[in-house]
């Protein structure tokens, strides 16, 4: 089956977030369940209507099972593919195929993490991962992963294209300006380019303000066939394209540190949607680090390779700029509970439904959401649109 025939065949009928920021006392599963229930209610459905489930966890490889158990589901379609932060965008196309094949009627995609407040915190989980997922050709050299991997990519981008720390800082400044318009964003203080440049170095050339937040939070959405979505209460947000690409696991195995697999996932997604970057009204990119936004704008075709630094300068991607990018504040200023991809997708849906409040991009009919996972290892792109842009 040509993926082009699946263009617009399914739609997102409901979305929700829960506990974004700091929610002490909750477990991953509790946070997830609150978001999942709210997304199903938002879709105008009941939990008993859900017969497809996609989910992934940083810490639990068998995560679909406790989620199914907790929610009381009996799904005919289950996807627990774990591709890091890109997972929940990567779950789209297989779920669309399952819906079109009649394997299920409504797919719930959900994630939750108490990464900030949980007793099994970030350093404990990083230590456990070193044992469970060893990288014997990187870990002995003591990189601070993931930041050092992205720092290496940033160093190469600066060397090859003259990209500057100030340009990367502008990514963080733009994200913060959007966050200031979003009541759900965890960090909303003013932020200037100088603030970013003067902040504490983590792994050169990335400072702490070039790195994403560490928050709690959960997100969920419901995917259903387009004909069914039209009978549900919300304006359907159609999935026009989706593709996933993985080129490596370790940063040392990446062929060219300035070119990510988003080139492949992006080209395939645009081909499925029949769109070009010019057709996209709002862009949600997985900004775990400021260099990500620059790399993905280039690899997805919003600017030429090497021009991302200049592209993000002078407020071009900030509120009022020519291209609205990461309108919720992104992983840099809104929310980043271990994996961010589902939040990029949810913000795209909220923009297309016209529900983004003060940060609403007027007349947004099309959106791109892009997920990244590992250390620039996995890339998944989706193009969403309202009925007007079908």
């Amino acid at each position, binding site marked *: 089956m040509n993926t082009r025939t699946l263009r617009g065949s399914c739609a997102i009928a409901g979305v929700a977030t829960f506990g974004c920021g700091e929610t002490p006392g909750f477990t991953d599963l509790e946070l997830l369940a609150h978001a999942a229930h709210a997304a199903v209610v938002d879709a105008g459905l009941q939990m008993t209507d859900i017969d497809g489930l996609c989910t992934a966890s940083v810490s639990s490889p068998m995560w679909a099972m406790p989620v199914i158990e907790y929610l009381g589901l009996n799904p005919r379609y289950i996807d627990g593919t774990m591709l890091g932060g890109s997972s929940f965008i990567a779950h789209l196309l297989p779920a669309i195929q399952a819906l079109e094949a009649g394997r299920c009627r409504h797919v719930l995609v959900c994630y939750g993490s108490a990464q900030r407040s949980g007793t099994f915190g970030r350093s404990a989980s990083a230590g456990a991962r070193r044992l469970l997922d060893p990288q*014997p050709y990187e870990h002995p*050299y003591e990189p601070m992963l993931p930041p050092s991997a992205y720092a290496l*990519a940033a160093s*190469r981008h600066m*060397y090859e294209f003259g990209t500057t720390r100030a340009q990367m800082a502008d990514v963080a400044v733009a994200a913060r300006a959007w966050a200031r318009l979003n009541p759900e964003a965890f960090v909303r203080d003013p932020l200037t380019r100088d603030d970013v440049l003067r902040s504490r170095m*983590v*792994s050169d050339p990335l400072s702490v303000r070039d790195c994403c937040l560490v928050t709690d939070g959960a997100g969920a959405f419901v995917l259903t066939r387009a004909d069914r979505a039209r009978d549900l209460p919300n304006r359907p947000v159609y999935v026009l394209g989706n593709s996933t690409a993985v080129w490596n696991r370790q940063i*040392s195995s990446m062929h060219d540190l300035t070119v990510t697999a988003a080139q492949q996932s992006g080209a395939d997604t645009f081909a499925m949607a029949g769109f070009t970057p010019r057709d996209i009204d709002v862009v949600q990119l997985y900004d775990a680090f400021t260099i990500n936004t620059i790399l993905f704008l280039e690899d997805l075709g919003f600017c030429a390779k090497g021009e991302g630094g200049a592209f993000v300068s002078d407020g071009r991607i900030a509120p009022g700029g020519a291209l609205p990018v990461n309108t919720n504040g992104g992983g840099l200023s809104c929310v980043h509970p271990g994996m961010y991809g589902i939040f990029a997708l949810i913000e795209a849906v909220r923009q297309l439904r016209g529900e983004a409040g003060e940060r609403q991009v007027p007349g947004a009919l099309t959106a791109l959401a892009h997920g990244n996972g590992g250390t620039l290892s996995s890339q998944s792109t989706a193009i969403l649109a309202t009925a007007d842009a079908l």
Partner: protein
Amino acid sequence: MNESVLAWHQARLQEGKFFIQRCSACAHHVYFPRAFCPHCGGDALEWTTPAGTGTVYAATTVRRKPTEGGDLNVSLIDLDEGVRLMSRIDGIAADDVHIGLRVRAKVVDGLVLFAPADGGSA
């Protein structure tokens, strides 16, 4: 090669010897070591001693507290044979490591480390 290539490679490193692989079918060099060639899929990988010289491809300074070992260079190095590996450059301040620096490998305590090559920086 009916044995763990990882274990064989690590045992040689413990002896102070650095090997990489070369595919005798497609002639590509391969690192990290593995059982099958990632370029052609064949199983004709042979151990070979690299020249040991290379060039810094990307570099970062991990900022650590002095109590945690202080600032640390982490680099990606392209060996002249055409393979890339993560390591660090010793014998030079972390902040002085730069992309393009010519370096030479040495094996220290089972790790492949690098120092600036004779003749200094490129």
